[in-house]
Structure formats: structure tokens, C-alpha cells
């Protein structure tokens, strides 16, 4: 077994050396394809982070009718308190709201301060506990309050959030489709590279068959060659994506933070990195397997 493995490794190294140019071309193609895919993932991961940062800042504001009774307000507060996902409740009276508004907009717009009545309603600001279901919890409570008497309106930026969520779904589908197309392309490229490797060693492979080599003995070094192409290609691609990430952070982190507080330009997470490496191994393996199986089948007795 050890001698089989050593021989397979030796043959793989020999094959790569003998077809260096083709091997490097194939690795370069894989690198480019995985770099494109990696950059898509980078954009996706960071937009996702942005969405979740926004999500964390979202609160449910319940605007009250001006003539809401004390009893209904108490009942509302009870409803909020009984919801386990609500972290804190703060009541803002009409006067407090008006005062806050005037403080904020005094310098920007003089006419609002000249109004002789308070147009703002009283409201409850509800903060929710962190968690993956946070936005859904807000949505659920908002839906349950829609028909509640004494509530004028509910506000939590639903339209923006749902648009952004839809965009993320489209982006996810787009990345998957592009990824699948790239994978098929790479399988064909690797398959052709291995085919060239096989043709350059056709006499040797035929001789192996004549001398009684098993198919496994012939296949293993060629499968390893495809696998090595995949792994080197993805390794280089991830290196390039990391360099781009470092450069982007260096250039844009400051301005990004000033626009979106708490948002940090992130690199691909470990599960995604491993997934890319495993996909590259799979692609290398399948690409090689296709051409070797095809070749061995063509040498089969006619």
C-alpha cells in the first residue's frame, strides 16, 4: 500500500513536470475562476453583514392615536411586556416628541418651530433582543398590532428591509448560478488538461495496461494531478481575494464606518473557505476522472 501511494505521488510529480506549461495554464484558469467567485462571495458576505447590522438597529415604533384611553395604553404595555423578544420599552409622550423634534430641526427648518400646535403623536419605542430571528420577531409583533384600536401607525423600515432582503436573495441565486457555470467550465478545462497529460504518456499507459496494471494504478496519479491543480488554483485565488480585501479595508474602512456605524469589511468565513477548497478538490477529481475513464474505456477490448 505504501509503495502504491509513493509510486502514485512520484508519477503525479513526474506528470506535472512533464506537462508544466499545460498544468500552469490550467492552474491559472482555476485561479481566475475562483477569484471571480471569491469576490462575489466577498460582496455577498459584506452586504449580508450590512443587512444584519441594519437589522440590529431596527426598532419598532408604535405611534398612538391622540385620543387613546389610559386603559388601552396599559393593555398595550402588557402586550409588549408579555412578548419575550422585547428587550426594552420606552414611552415618548407627544410633548417629548415635539421637544425632541424641535431640538433636532431647529437650525434646519425654522417654520416647524413656528407652528402653534403639536402635530406629533405619542409613541412606544420597542427594542428587541439580538438573534437570527430578530427581524421576523419585529414583523410578527407589528402584524399582530395592526388591527389594534388606539394605534395610529407602526414603523420599522419594513419596505427597505424587505427590498434589501429580496436583493440578497437575487444575489444569492446569481452567485449560485455563476458558481455552477464556473464549476462546469472548470471541470471541462481540467478534464482537457488531464487528457493532454494522458496523450503525452499514451505509450506508457498502454504499456501499463499490457503489463497488467490495474485501472486504479493508472487512475490514481492522474486523479491526484487534477486534485493538485484544483487545490493550487483555489489557494492562489483565495490569496488574491485576501489581498483585495486588505486593500479595500485600507482604502474604504474609514468612510464606510462613517456611513454605516459598526460595519466592518469582512473576509470570507471559515465554512465558506473550506467549501471553496472542497469544491476545488471535487472539480479537480471529477475533471480528471472524466478524461481517464473515457481514455481507459477507449482502450478497452473492441
Amino acid at each position, binding site marked *: 500500500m505504501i509503495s502504491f501511494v509513493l509510486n502514485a505521488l512520484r508519477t503525479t510529480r513526474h506528470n506535472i513536470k512533464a506537462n508544466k506549461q499545460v498544468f500552469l495554464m490550467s492552474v491559472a484558469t482555476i485561479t481566475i475562476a475562483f477569484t471571480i467567485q471569491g469576490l462575489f462571495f466577498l460582496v455577498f458576505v459584506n452586504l449580508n453583514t450590512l443587512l444584519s447590522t441594519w437589522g440590529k438597529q431596527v426598532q419598532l415604533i408604535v405611534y398612538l392615536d391622540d385620543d387613546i384611553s389610559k386603559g388601552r395604553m396599559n393593555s398595550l404595555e402588557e402586550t409588549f411586556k408579555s412578548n419575550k423578544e422585547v428587550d426594552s420599552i420606552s414611552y415618548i409622550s407627544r410633548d417629548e416628541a415635539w421637544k425632541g423634534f424641535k431640538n433636532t430641526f431647529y437650525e434646519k427648518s425654522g417654520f416647524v418651530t413656528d407652528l402653534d400646535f403639536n402635530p406629533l403623536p405619542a409613541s412606544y419605542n420597542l427594542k428587541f433582543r439580538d438573534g437570527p430571528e430578530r427581524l421576523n420577531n419585529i414583523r410578527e409583533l407589528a402584524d399582530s398590532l395592526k388591527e389594534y384600536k388606539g394605534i395610529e401607525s407602526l414603523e420599522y423600515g419594513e419596505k427597505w428591509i424587505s427590498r434589501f432582503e429580496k436583493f440578497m436573495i437575487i444575489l444569492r441565486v446569481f452567485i449560485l448560478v455563476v458558481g455552477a457555470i464556473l464549476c462546469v467550465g472548470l471541470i471541462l478545462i481540467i478534464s482537457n488538461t488531464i487528457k493532454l497529460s494522458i496523450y503525452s504518456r499514451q505509450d506508457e499507459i498502454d504499456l501499463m495496461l499490457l503489463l497488467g496494471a490495474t485501472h486504479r494504478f493508472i487512475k490514481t496519479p492522474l486523479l491526484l494531478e487534477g486534485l493538485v491543480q484544483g487545490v493550487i488554483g483555489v489557494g492562489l485565488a483565495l490569496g488574491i481575494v485576501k489581498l483585495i480585501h486588505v486593500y479595500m479595508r485600507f482604502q474604504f474602512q474609514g468612510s464606510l464606518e462613517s456611513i454605516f456605524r459598526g460595519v466592518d469589511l469582512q473576509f470570507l468565513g471559515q465554512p465558506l473557505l473550506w467549501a471553496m477548497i472542497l469544491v476545488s478538490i471535487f472539480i479537480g477529481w471529477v475533471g480528471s476522472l472524466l478524461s481517464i475513464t473515457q481514455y481507459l474505456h477507449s482502450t*478497452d477490448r473492441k
Partner: protein
Amino acid sequence: MIQAFNLHKSYGGGAPALQNVSFTIQEGEFVFLTGQSGAGKTTLFKILFGWEALDQGQVLVGGINVGKLNENNLYTLRRKVGVVFQDYKLLPKKTVFDNVAFAQQIIGADKKTIRFNTWDALKSVGLTNKKDAYPPQLSGGEQQRVAIARALVNDPQLILADEPTGNLDPEISLEILELFEKMNQQGKTVIMATHSLEMLQVRDHRLLILNRGRIVQS
């Protein structure tokens, strides 16, 4: 060693390469297979070591029904048969030693066994002094002896030699023939294809004659 019954093989629409070929070869026999070019000698060899499939008939080689083998277990047959070709089929970038050792590596022998058996095989064909040379540096006769050593190294029961002296001058051809006879004396069954009359005349081995795909003498 070999039992062939009504072998039939044709390529495309032309005349069949083999028609109703039947013969038996006992273990330890030395047989000349002869006939004109295109008589079907190479096709018969290819069938015997599983490189070509039969259209009809049955052939048993060392107890293995060749027609029943599939691509995953053909190697069991090929490990029992040592094949020598007219064009040697040596790997030009490997040394003489490595060319012979290659056959041992393929069957998964360990390093020590490979070294021992390769040396032994080279010794039996008288080429130990050329072990580090590359095939293009050798004469035709020497290259054929390397090919014979490679066919021998895995200790096969049957040696199939397809025109092994076709590219060699008469003197060297006789040396090569003597090598095959030596193997035969060691108990191996040898079938040697040749259309050299000289060779057929100098030795009194059994003759299997093919003519246009049919056995005319067995």
C-alpha cells in the same frame, strides 16, 4: 496452457482476421506461429492477452476464460502472460533497469523485490552491464533483450513473442531465439510468431500455421 475453440474475429466489413481457429497448446511447449503478413498472427496474440475481444468462440489461457473478463479484471490475465513485441515498446526516458523494474512496480512489488527480480531478469538476458543505459543508446538486439527481461520479470507462465526478431539481423535473431528457448527450458510456455523461414528451419519446434485467418497446420 491454451485451449482455443472456433475463434472468430473481423474488423469492419473486410475479410475476417480469424475464422474458426481452434488449437491446444500444452504447458511447457515451444510453438512457432507462422504465416504471411496479414494472416492473423498479431490478432490472435492480441486476443490471447486480452487486447482485442472475440466475435465468436472461446479461449482459455492458464485456466482463465478470456472472453469472460471485463476491463476491471483483465489484469489478472495479463499478469500471467509476458508479451514481447517487434518494436520493443520500451520507454525511452527510463533506463534499462527502470524499464524492467516498471513491470514489477505495476504489480505492486516492494522495493527490495523489485531490485532483486530486475537484476535477476537482466542477468538472464545478459544485460546487467547496460542497466544504466537508455534504450536509444542500445542496439536493436539489446533493446529486444531488455523487452524480454521485462516480459520475464513478473515470472509469467506464458510468453507471447510477436515477431521479436523482425527488426534484427540473422545472427542476433538466433541469440534472441536461444533466449526464448532458455525460458522454455525453465518451464515457460512460449509462442513465438515469425515468418522467418531461416528460424523455422534451424529449430524443430511445433508449428502453428495461419493463412488468411485460418489454421492450416497445428
